[in-house]
C-alpha cells in the first residue's frame, strides 16, 4: 500500500466533515483532489483502518463512518436546515448548483422583485442567529454554507461566492428522500 505524503492534510480536512472538491478555487484543495483521485484505493483502505470510509462523490470526496456517531435527531435538524436553505437558493436561481457564481447583493436585488423569495428569507430567520436585517440574514446563511464547505468565497473584493462540487452532496441527499406517489398527489402545484 502506498500512501501519498499529503495524507495528513487530507485527513485533517475530511475528518472535520469538510469536502475536497475538484472545482475549488484553492489550488491546494484541487491538488488534494487529484492526489486522492490517484491513490483512491490505497487511501480508502488506509482510512478504513481508523474507522473512516473515504467516499467518492460527483467531483468531491468526503468521509463517512460505518456506524452512526450522532443521534438521529441531530441529523434530522441538520437536514431540515439544509432543506430550508436549499429551497431558498433554488428559488433565488433555478440553476443554483455546482459552479454557480453569485454575490450576496445579487440575492438582495432579487428580493425586491420576488415576493416569494422574501417570504422564504423570513423563514430562514431562525438560522440567522437573531438577525433582523435581510442582508445580515443572508450573510449569516452564506456563512453557514461556507462553514459546511458547500460554497467558497472566490473574490474577497467583489464578495463573489462560488458554489463548489460538494453542493452535489446536498442535491443527492434530497433526491434520496423518497416521496410515495400518493403523497405526491396531495402536494399542490
Amino acid at each position, binding site marked *: 500500500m502506498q500512501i501519498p505524503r499529503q495524507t495528513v492534510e487530507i485527513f485533517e480536512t*475530511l*475528518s*472535520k*466533515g*469538510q*469536502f475536497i472538491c475538484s472545482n475549488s478555487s484553492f489550488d491546494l484543495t484541487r491538488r488534494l483532489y487529484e492526489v486522492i483521485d490517484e491513490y483512491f484505493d490505497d487511501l480508502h483502505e488506509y482510512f478504513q483502518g481508523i474507522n*473512516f470510509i473515504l*467516499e467518492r462523490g460527483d467531483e468531491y470526496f*468526503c*468521509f*463517512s*463512518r*460505518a*456506524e*452512526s*456517531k*450522532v443521534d*438521529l435527531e*441531530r*441529523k*434530522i435538524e*441538520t*437536514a*431540515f436546515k439544509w*432543506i*430550508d436553505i*436549499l*429551497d431558498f437558493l*433554488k428559488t433565488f436561481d*433555478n*440553476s443554483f*448548483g455546482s459552479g454557480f457564481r453569485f454575490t450576496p447583493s445579487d440575492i438582495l436585488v432579487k428580493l425586491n422583485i420576488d415576493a416569494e423569495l422574501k417570504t422564504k428569507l423570513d423563514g430562514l430567520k431562525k438560522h440567522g442567529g437573531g438577525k433582523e436585517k435581510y442582508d445580515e440574514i443572508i450573510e449569516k446563511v452564506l456563512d453557514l454554507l461556507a462553514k*459546511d*464547505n458547500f460554497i467558497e468565497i472566490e473574490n474577497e473584493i467583489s464578495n463573489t461566492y462560488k458554489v463548489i462540487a460538494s453542493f452535489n*452532496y446536498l*442535491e443527492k*441527499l*434530497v*433526491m*434520496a*428522500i*423518497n*416521496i*410515495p406517489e400518493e*403523497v*405526491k398527489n396531495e*402536494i*399542490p402545484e
Partner: protein
Amino acid sequence: MNTFSSIKELLSTLYREQKLLSEMFEKRKTLSYKYDFALEMVDHEDRIQSLINHSVIRPNGPYLEIDDQFLQFFEMVLEVNEEINISYINENIQNVKDNILYYLQENNENRKYSYLRTVKAAFRKIGLITIRNVVDLKRNVENTFKNEPNYKIKKAKLENLDRKRIDINSLIDQTERLISEEEQTFFKSALDEELKQIIIHTRLQLNECRHNLIEIQKQIIEYLNQIKYQSGIIEKIRQIKYLKDQFEIRSKTNLIEVLAKNNAAILEPNPSYPLKLSLDYLQTDDVAYESIKKVSKRVKMGVRLDLPIAENISNEYLETQIEEEIQVNLEEVKNGFVASGKHLFEFVMGYDFAKEIPFDERVTIYCQLASQYEAVFNVTEKFNAQREFEFALVYPR
C-alpha cells in the same frame, strides 16, 4: 409598392442607407427600433419612406423592422442566421434530381452541358448549406442551453433543435443515396472531371457534417438530461419543503431511514482531539522551550501581590453603652405653671424637677420659658428681686 428595377439600383439604395440598415440589423433581436430613432439616422423622412416603398424595411406600429426577405439574406450571407432552415437543402436535392432527368433526356450537347453545370452548382450548394446548418445548430444548442432562463422553454427549444438535427441527418442520407445509388446512370455517363471532384468534396463535407451531428446529438442529450435533473431537483426540493412545513415529512417520507443510513462526517459535530503533550518533546525541543518561556512570562504577569490586612476590630468597640441624661420638658413645666396661679419665677424655683437643679439653671429655665412662651404669658412691668437677680413678674394670660 415599387420594386428595384436593376441590381445597380438595389445596391446603391442599400449603400445610401447603410448606416440605418446596419444599425437596425444589429438591433434586430430587440425588435424595438423606433421610427423616431430612424429619423435621427437619415437626413430626410422621404428616405425612410422610399425604403418602406421598396419594402426594404417595414413599419410595425411605432417601430421599424427590416423586411424578412432582406433580413434572411443578410443573415445567410453573414452566417449569423438563428433559424436553421433545411428547406434549402431539400430544394437543392429536388433541383439535382430534376436536372439529372433533363440531362439524360436532352440530346443537344450544349444544353446538356448547362444542365450539368446546374447539377454541379446544386451539389456545391448542398455541401455548403449543410455545413452551415450544422454550425448554426451547434451554436444554437449551446446558446439555448446557456442563455434561456426558463426551464420549460429551454427544454422545448432543445427538443426542437434535436428534431432539426434529425432532419439534417435524413437529408444527408438522401444526398448520399442520390449519389451512390439512385442516379448511377448519370454519374457513370457524365464523365466530367470537375463533377467527380465536386461529388467527392461534397461527400467529404457531408461526412464531416455527420460526425458533427453525432457530437451535437450527444450534446443535446446531455443538456436535456441536465435540465431534467435540475428541474427534478427543484421539484423535489419544493415537495420536500412543503411536507416539512406541514410537519409531515417524518411520517410520509423515508427521511429518517435515509438519514439513519447516512453517516457522513459532515453530520457530526466538529471533533476536537485533546491530546497531552509529549514530555520528551517539551524537554528537548527548542520551539517548545520558547513556547514554555512565553507561557511562563504570561503566567508571571498575572500574579497579584497580597495586600496587608488590617487587624480585627476589638469587641470593646462594638459593645453598646447606655448613658442617661435628664432633660427638662419645657412644655410640661409651662402647663404646670399655667395651672398653678403663681408667678413664673416663683413657680420655676419651687418646681419639682426629676433631678436636683441648682439655682443658676433654674434661672436659665425661667428665661427659656419666658422667651419661648411669650405669647401665652403675661409679662408685667413689675419687678422683684431675689439674691442678686432682678426679674419681671410673669403670669399666665
